[in-house]
């Protein structure tokens, strides 16, 4: 059954790829033919934002147990929530890199430069740097419990600046005026018809792929955690004193 579903997913992804090259151009963009990358660009920041918020929620769970609003004290539960948080963060960073890569291509084709210091591009680069620091925090701690706590704290600390850079800063009046980046093209009805349907299909496929990758990452992480816990138990077993009664033996006999 799983193999059939995977084959079906691959087939639909193939269809979506071909469809994204076949949909009729829309005149809204400066170079409509090349602007098709928008179909692949648009879902990436959506998923990035969703995953970053989800990761922050899992980071809250590292510290707090919402049942009874108690601090989370179980080390294994903390490690599992941290694993979920880092799985989301890794995936979100992948989508952030894809956003940046497709955005740079769009910038070259539509605005003439690989990097044109557009406020939206620049603020998203800042977001990328903020979340790169998350991985720096994780690498900075070799002790797993400290790594869990401090990276979760950073994930929470980074959320507000990241959301500000994504949703407020580019829309400030003087900044918005400087931007070449299209804004509100879907809400204003400029992306419609077959173009919009193709974009929605790609978004759905990306969501399915993200869920699949997230589940694989969490599953492998849980196996790693279980192995580490078993190793720790074995080590503890080796260090403990032997059980049973030790009888004193007289050396003179």
């Amino acid at each position, binding site marked *: 059954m799983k193999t059939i579903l995977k084959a079906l997913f691959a087939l639909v992804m193939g269809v979506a790829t071909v469809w994204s090259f076949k949909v009729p151009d829309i005149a809204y963009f400066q170079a409509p033919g090349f602007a098709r990358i928008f179909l692949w660009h648009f879902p990436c920041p959506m998923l990035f934002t969703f995953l970053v918020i989800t990761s922050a929620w899992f980071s809250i769970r590292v510290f707090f147990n919402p049942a009874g609003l108690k*601090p989370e004290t179980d080390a294994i539960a903390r490690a599992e929530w941290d694993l979920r948080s880092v799985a989301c963060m890794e995936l979100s960073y992948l989508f952030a890199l894809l956003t940046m890569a497709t955005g740079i291509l769009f910038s070259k084709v539509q605005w003439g430069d690989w990097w044109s210091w557009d406020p939206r591009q620049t603020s998203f680069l800042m977001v990328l740097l903020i979340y790169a620091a998350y991985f720096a925090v994780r690498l*900075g701690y070799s002790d797993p419990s400290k790594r869990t706590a401090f990276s979760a*704290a950073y994930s*929470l*600390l*980074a959320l*507000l600046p990241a959301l500000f850079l994504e949703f407020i800063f580019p829309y*400030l009046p*003087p900044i918005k005026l400087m931007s070449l980046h299209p804004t509100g093209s879907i809400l204003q009805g400029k992306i419609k018809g077959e173009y919009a349907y193709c974009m929605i299909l790609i978004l759905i496929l990306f969501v399915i792929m993200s869920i699949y990758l997230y589940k694989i990452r969490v599953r492998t992480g849980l196996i790693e955690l279980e192995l580490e816990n078993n190793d720790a138990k074995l080590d503890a077993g080796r260090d403990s004193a032997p059980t049973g009664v030790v009888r004193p033996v007289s050396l003179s006999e």
Partner: protein
Amino acid sequence: MNSSWRAEILAIFRKEWRTEVRSLSGLLTALLFSVVTVYAISFAALNTKLQGTVIAGMLWVALLFSAASSLTRTFLAEEENGTADLLRLVARPHAVFWGKALFNIVQCVVTSSLLSILYLGFTSAPVPIPWLFGVSLITGCLSLAGAVTLCGAIAAQATNRSMLAAAISVPLLLPLVALGVSGMRVSLGDGSLSSGGFASVIGLIGYAVATLATGPYIYAAVWKT
């Protein structure tokens, strides 16, 4: 705030103050860094009439690196000197955060005021809206101190703590720098109050409130790790 909280916060603040007065390492490092930066920027722009945006940008870059290099020390020094565990025994996490943040705010205001005076003196830049310049600087210092204090706490127990503190605080402060530049350029005559001046100050206040309000809770969560 009841008197026990106030006493605890002030005790932490006094401890930081006395430690600083004894060695003057943080303040002197920040001041030296600021003077050298201002001199280097002024020298690089010798005999050139700089625009308000450029002046504000350079000033904020100097403030950013000065804060990232000096303000993170409050927590890093505790771990390096081995006094962090003692602090955990005698004080509550919220009080520790607030005491250290208050000290960092004072240090940041002193350093950035001196840096700004020197910088404006060297570049002979006019300041048509001085109150906006002052408000941008003060709210910027509040935000810088709040965010950098927390970054210092997050990096304090890492193996490469000094580098990590700078590496995580600089990206987090970039939006703050963008807001600071936007507000300060208007105060230096580049743009109008309605075209970003007010919005930037509101943004800076929001950033300060967000970091100082969430900071103690985030710190309390990692406090005894």
